[in-house]
């Protein structure tokens, strides 16, 4: 069943919409949640929350592409859940590592401008990523959107792990410079 047909089922309030979504995107969303949460049960819960959220969003929404629409919901649920989970469970998981790496962009005495709106920051990062060479873009999105491990990225993109690591480091440095040039981050006031 194609995305348009599934979306139509949502608009018709047919519960088959959930079944078809689960069939087509269940595994995809589970991987996204699992990459972030590293826990099967929490991931399953996140995926179920995604279906519920999609059910509530359609109508009025009519996403052109259901995959990214659902993926984004799952990712947001998973990130929210991992922040909440901090009261109970912490450790050197993949998400923490990814956050640490991202923080590296700004940790040398820089802060994101507190006044800028999240939308502005999102737009800037989207532009930055859009201008990256193809492979670099794939590596960056795989790591920081999907929270895939460097090892997995290396396997899937036929690169060496050290190559992935070095590329990510370069991209983070470029991102830091870009954010500074765009006036989106400033020197941290100590």
């Amino acid at each position, binding site marked *: 069943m194609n995305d348009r047909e599934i979306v139509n089922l949502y608009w018709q309030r047919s519960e088959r919409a959930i079944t078809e979504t689960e069939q*087509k995107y269940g595994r995809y969303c589970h991987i996204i949640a699992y990459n972030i949460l590293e826990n099967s049960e929490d991931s399953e819960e996140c995926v179920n929350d995604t279906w519920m959220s999609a059910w509530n969003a359609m109508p009025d929404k009519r996403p052109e592409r259901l995959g990214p629409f659902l993926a984004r919901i799952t990712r947001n649920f998973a990130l929210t859940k991992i922040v909440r989970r*901090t009261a109970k469970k912490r450790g*050197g998981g993949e998400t923490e590592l990814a*956050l640490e790496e991202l*923080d590296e962009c700004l940790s040398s005495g820089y802060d994101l401008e507190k006044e800028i709106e999240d939308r502005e920051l*999102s737009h800037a990062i*989207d532009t930055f990523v859009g201008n990256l060479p193809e492979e670099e*873009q794939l590596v960056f*999105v795989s790591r*920081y959107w999907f929270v895939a491990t460097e090892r997995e990225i290396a396997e899937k993109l036929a690169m060496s792990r050290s190559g992935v690591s070095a590329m990510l480091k370069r991209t983070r440095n470029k991102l830091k410079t870009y954010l500074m040039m765009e006036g989106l981050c400033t020197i941290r006031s100590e």
Partner: protein
Amino acid sequence: MYNSERMMKAIGELSDDKIEKASRALGYQKERRWTSRIPFRMGRVLSIAAVVALILALGAVAYAVNLFGLRELYANPNRGDMPEEAADLIVSQNSEVKGDGWSASVQETYCDEGTVLVTVHVSADASYIVVPTDADLDSPLSVIGLSGEGTLREYAQKEGKTLLFVGANLDQEALGLNSAGERFENASPQEMTIYVEGARGSDTGAPVDTVCTVVAVLWPLEAQDSDAVVPERRDLPITLVEGKSTPLGLYTPADPYALPGFELSELSLTQTPLGTELRLKMSVLDEEKARNLLTLRLDGVEFHGAGTIDPNGYAVFSQGQGDFGDSPVIRFLDWDKNTIADVTFEKIG
């Protein structure tokens, strides 16, 4: 909100085409094959370095000679080799189950207060290709240690064989596991070793007779949807013998309220055969403030096992290496890896 969280959130708004491109490259966007509650993957720690990768043709086989023992699978560049005293505690097992054309057996186990390790060997007859449950029909051949172009589906079609997906689980409740993960290493298309590593929590009890559950899924290539495949679960009985742990000390915090949102109480440090284990009782007083905490570090010690805080309110970190001194200091870090508090502990026993 911290810098890194804002960045992560902003990256979440990347355009659809960028997300789709990456998801295709990662092979994520495929339909669900079956419903399984087993963890996806812990990551392959052993590299394909064991494989002589010179042959480029589809399905060309190039395997290492040795099968994978628990000791070999434990080792990785971060934590190094398994300590000798732990390796001495590896127990050989002989529990076996047979399916239709395949069999699985628990090979070796290791257990201490903080960690459970199990290896399971799966072999199948020549009509099957044994693949990990974290793969799918369109995964590259490298997931089973083969070099060359093509997918598992294409390889199975070319060889006229059936894919047999396998995985293994431990009984998390019986063993008091806070987390568990598995990784997979093929020794040939018909032989695989599954390595399972579980991190035990604060309420582990005595060593137990338990089971390792093997999940096997036959996926005929002609099957169009998940209705056609049925996961088969078989329990392999195992008896775990817990390696001796030596208490290193019981400590109390100089200031129990130094960490905002928590009350800290006793800290126990124990020497297990795999290294130092830390257990710190920490009660949440303020959920909002408690959310600022990401992790903790014990000065002078690096932990290589899983680090979690379990539902009983204990932080449990295992497989530590290093020296923590007479008055251990625990550093608590927030999501930006800034220090929230340094707490010194005094020995009381």
